[in-house]
């Protein structure tokens, strides 16, 4: 692939706000209800109904704005975005164009080379979600479920500061983490609570003017964002290098074929004819209200990460992983509080075995099969040398299967570590006796054979011998 092309990407992230009711009506915004049981007359755009704005939506948008260092508009207005589509009952979507609630802000990400990149946020505005069209299961018809219509959305628009598919994913993950920290979005991508559109263009590095962009719609997983952008960049380069031109259009990513293709929709070229919604008055936001929200903001991931590095002396990459999710960070601190073991070891366990176990069972941390205090109990058994780190993994697996606490399992399976010098000495002697030729080789300089002896001893003791002591005694005997 030619490297003379500079890739320019901007993301529009849609985050469904975790309010109980719709943005302009008192219908429930919960996910998964029977079709059309949560769509009231306001959501359906019946004549004579009046939308009334949900205070929670405003509050959540402000929380986001403050968290990314944006300016909060004290005066904000709603507009109608006009287009026809069956899942948009009113024939327009209530959104914001001029005077959005959140203006500016930025997000720092790490690129593939570990360098910090600042991605500007243009704006974040409130709008209502549309309903859903279901195409399968009907003869020559589509079914329309309007439960989602009117669900509050925050659309977060980035500057075209992103220069690769992996940066786009890093940025999206950062925003994903922030909205969950703030408790304003559950971040559930399978359910569509968090999704994004990507504007992608390329241009020669030497050129200032941006190239023609295409818009990739409804990317609802980090993997799809990455693949769709990668694919689209390649496609654009091919088109241009073959002497063609990029057409400004909306394209859909097909994950089965791993390609993007133009939408077949006949919708006219984004001529939305926005105008201020006469049903909604300007929203005036009090400075005191903003300050109150500012005071209630939680510790955000970047600040938490620095604190973890500072107070727990963790590796920067580990602190980053632990603080991506608030639940994981809280879990870490809870375990840490309950054990004397080194903070880095707790981190290794959480990032390693614990996360692997969660992933294997496709569980969220709140559904974890091992509580913080149970895990601390296990780690304490390593700290007081009852078991080795290696045996601890076996105990961990048994705990995950629900066989009891660390203490119970160690007792039941007889896993207590052998730390008694004379007992280890006996075994060491035995192993030395049984392997005369290896001993000879070792003494002649094949020092790597030490690992072989340790292995034999561990085999004899089923891994229960204290590794430090084994090493110590072995070296003493093998002179």
């Amino acid at each position: 692939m030619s490297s003379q092309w500079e890739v320019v990407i901007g993301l529009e992230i849609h985050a469904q706000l975790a309010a109980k009711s719709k943005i302009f009506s008192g219908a429930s915004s919960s996910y998964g209800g029977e079709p059309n049981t949560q769509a009231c007359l306001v959501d359906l755009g019946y004549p004579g109904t009046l939308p009334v704005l949900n205070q929670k939506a405003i509050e959540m948008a402000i929380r986001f704005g403050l968290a990314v260092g944006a300016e909060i508009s004290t005066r904000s207005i709603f507009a109608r975005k006009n287009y026809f589509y069956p899942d948009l009952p009113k024939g327009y979507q209530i959104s914001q164009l001029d005077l959005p609630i959140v203006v500016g802000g930025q997000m720092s990400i790490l690129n593939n080379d570990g360098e910090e990149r600042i991605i500007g946020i243009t704006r974040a505005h409130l709008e209502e979600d549309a309903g859903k069209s279901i195409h399968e299961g009907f003869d020559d018809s589509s079914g329309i479920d309007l439960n989602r219509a009117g669900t509050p959305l925050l659309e977060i628009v980035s500057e075209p500061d992103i220069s690769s598919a992996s940066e786009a994913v890093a940025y999206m993950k950062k925003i994903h983490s922030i909205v969950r920290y703030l408790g304003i979005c559950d971040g559930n991508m399978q359910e569509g609570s968090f999704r994004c559109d990507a504007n992608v263009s390329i241009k020669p590095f030497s050129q200032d003017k941006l190239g023609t962009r295409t818009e990739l719609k409804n990317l609802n997983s980090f993997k799809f964002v990455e693949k769709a952008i990668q694919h689209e960049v390649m496609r654009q380069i091919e088109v241009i290098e073959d002497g063609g031109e990029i057409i400004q259009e909306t394209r859909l990513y097909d994950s089965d074929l791993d390609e993007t293709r133009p939408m077949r929709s006949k919708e006219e070229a984004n001529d939305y004819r926005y105008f201020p919604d006469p049903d909604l008055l300007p929203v005036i936001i009090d400075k005191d209200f903003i300050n109150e929200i500012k005071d209630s903001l939680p510790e955000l991931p970047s600040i938490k990460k620095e604190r973890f590095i500072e107070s727990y002396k963790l590796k920067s990459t580990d602190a980053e992983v632990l603080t991506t999710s608030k639940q994981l960070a809280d879990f870490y601190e809870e375990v840490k509080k309950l054990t004397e073991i080194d903070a880095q070891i707790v981190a290794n366990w959480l990032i390693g075995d614990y996360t692997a176990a969660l992933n294997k069972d496709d569980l969220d941390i709140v559904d974890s099969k091992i509580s913080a205090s149970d895990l601390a109990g296990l780690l304490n058994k390593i700290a007081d040398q009852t078991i080795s780190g290696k045996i601890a993994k076996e105990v961990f697996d048994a705990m995950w299967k629900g066989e009891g606490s660390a203490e119970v399992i160690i007792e039941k399976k007889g896993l207590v570590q052998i730390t008694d010098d004379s007992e280890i000495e006996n075994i060491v002697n035995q192993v030395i006796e049984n392997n005369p030729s290896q001993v000879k080789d070792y003494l002649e300089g094949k020092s790597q054979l030490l690992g072989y002896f340790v292995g034999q001893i561990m085999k004899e003791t089923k891994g229960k011998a204290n590794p430090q002591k084994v090493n110590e005694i072995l070296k003493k005997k093998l002179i």
Partner: protein
Amino acid sequence: MSINKDEIKYLSLLSRMDIDKNEIKDIEEKLTKIIDFVDQLQTISTDNIAPMAHPLNQSQRLRIDEVTETNDRENIQKNAQQIEKGMYLVPKVID
């Protein structure tokens, strides 16, 4: 400023209004009058006036985030031409 036949056709497409060929001339004249009127307004200098978002000089009242609506699907769907499995049916739309 004026409006031409192609623009009227485009607007009728955007607004999904089926305008008969015979009506176009009449509509052109009427819309032109409206546009002329707007042109008059635009001769007034508004340089130092903040744009007005709403004719009422009031601010939006906010709702408390509570679920107040109950399921009224059966009643509402009496107005639909075709329903199946609780959904409204429309001619197949696929992107």
